[in-house]
């Protein structure tokens, strides 16, 4: 089966890390490159984390670092969710693969230019790099097959009542992406809070026994601590849904909607505004994921993590 050519762009982050474990482990994606963005932590930390994750999972793809801050807005980081390192929890291997000198955006453009076929972008952090790419290389839009992103929520937010973290961090960038005309798959809170991994699933993953499985189980443990304090019964692995949506679209429910990003306001900055009632009469610009077969999602993760080797268990 032909692999899907993708670029992974994220701010790892526990759920970014698990998204990338899934992307590599699925063996159905041709990962052309990896880029880091500031979000869950500073760009230095997310880049270091990205490199350690790639080393852990043997992902030796071209890798470049994103800019220091969002396009216009002030940076926001999320140490309460991901810890001071941005990826607290188990010890990880030190980076074994090089970091390119070029900017993340330059690398993305180079990979798009070199690709024979359109490439799918999978941004799981703020959309800073993707927006900069679209602004700096408008001629490459046709080389982007689609953007499967984790961000937003057409019904509610998490960092504010109206806004989800990734979109709130760089709303102007998100506006560029949603206005781009490129097909968007939106894995927002509407679906990702249903992509819940329960403690019994952690054990199922740990029991796979390989080194990646053990670390993923520990990441989930860490990620769950924060969510449990908010009353969740498991860990919503937000970012992995943006990957799963490409691997197994049949396990998702979705609604095609016209979605815009609010960039200002007292309460709504960073909100993804969907036209549910067709007030504007605009054609949909996003496939908004609204539901997921949770068990199938867990099975997909388990299967992918199993490919990292036979366990001792």
């Amino acid at each position: 089966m032909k692999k899907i050519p993708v670029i992974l762009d994220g701010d790892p982050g526990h759920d970014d890390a698990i998204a990338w474990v899934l992307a590599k482990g699925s063996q159905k994606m041709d990962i052309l490159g990896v880029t880091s963005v500031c979000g869950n932590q500073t760009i230095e930390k997310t880049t270091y984390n990205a490199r350690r994750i790639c080393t852990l999972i043997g992902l030796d793809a071209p890798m470049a670092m994103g800019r220091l801050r969002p396009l216009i807005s002030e940076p926001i980081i999320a140490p309460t969710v991901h810890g001071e390192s941005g990826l607290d929890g188990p010890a990880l291997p030190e980076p074994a693969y090089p970091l390119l000198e070029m900017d993340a955006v330059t690398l993305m453009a180079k990979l798009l230019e070199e690709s024979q076929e359109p490439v799918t972008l999978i941004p799981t952090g703020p959309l800073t790099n993707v927006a900069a790419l679209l602004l700096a290389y408008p001629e490459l839009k046709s080389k982007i097959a689609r953007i499967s992103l984790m961000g937003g929520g057409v019904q509610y937010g998490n960092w504010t009542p109206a806004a989800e973290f990734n979109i709130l961090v760089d709303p102007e960038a998100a506006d560029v992406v949603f206005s781009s005309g490129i097909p968007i798959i939106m894995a927002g809170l509407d679906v990702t809070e249903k992509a819940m991994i329960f403690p019994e699933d952690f054990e199922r993953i740990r029991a796979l026994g390989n080194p990646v499985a053990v670390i993923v189980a520990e990441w989930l443990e860490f990620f769950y601590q924060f969510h449990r304090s908010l009353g969740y019964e498991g860990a919503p692995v937000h970012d992995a849904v943006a990957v799963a949506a490409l691997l197994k679209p049949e396990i998702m429910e979705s609604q095609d909607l016209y979605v815009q990003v609010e960039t200002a306001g007292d309460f709504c900055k960073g909100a993804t505004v969907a036209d549910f009632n067709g007030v504007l009469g605009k054609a949909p610009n996003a496939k908004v994921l609204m539901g997921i077969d949770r068990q199938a999602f867990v099975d997909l993760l388990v299967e992918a993590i199993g490919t990292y080797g036979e366990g001792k268990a």
Partner: protein
Amino acid sequence: MKRIPVIIDCDPGVDDTAALLLAYQMPELDIRAVTTVAGNVGVDKTTNNAKKVRKIMGADFPIYRGADKPMFRPLVTAAEFHGADGFGGVEMPVPDDVIPEEKAWDAIYRIAKECEGELVLIAVGPMTNVGIALAKYKELPKLLKKIVIMGGAAIGGNVTPAAEFNIYVDPEAADMMFCCGVPVHMCGLDVTLQAYATKEELEQIAALGTPQAKLFCDVLQNGLKKYLSWGKKGVALHDPAAVLYTAYPELFTAEEAGVRVETKGPLTLGKTVTDLYSDKQFDDHNAFVVTGVDREKFLQKVYDLMEKYAKAE
């Protein structure tokens, strides 16, 4: 039975007309006054329409004229939906009754004082009169038992993708109301779009044969056509939902939540931002968001109330 003293603040308006027709037959409600405001059409017309409805009902509650424009903005109307005269194209002479000079906000305060903390304010137009009353009378919040509104939406909008008409017209007044300390029960689009009447159900009411039943159905015809053309099953009984909620809350589901109104965002102006589904909560849970209705029972109640006009003859 202990009756609930209410003031109905409205902008008739086709569904306002339906709401008044229903409210007058509810033994649970003691209508102390109807106050009018600019909204669906200008305040001269909404006041005239209130007089027409009062006359056809044979009611004797006082009508007080309110604001002719929002607190800080020019008026936006919805004449394309409610008809140029705001009466759904129904021709009826304006009764020549003279209404008191007292302004709506002064009447609201005076009556609230007379009711010694028992008054329920039902506001089903833009919240301008409420906002002005709060601006003028600092003691007013202590005198109101609760405020029930038709307005807003936790999800979606009808005048923009994010905002419902009544809140959009005067967002500052609406935010003043939500912040005033009186619990606000919000019957927004979340519930009112569920509280629809089909063509057949309206015909059943019309078949009651009274002038009131005829008016009820006639004013809603234009709206019915629009809703059906949008692919909906019937015409939303927005304002009747708020009136019935006041007397029959058991037909509805409501959840306590924090609500604020966006007054600055370019895309989200007039959005009622709730923390109903969000991890991030507002400091204050100032409202109850009505999210559901038992439509069958609701419509039965509407029919039963309209039937009383026939029995009275």
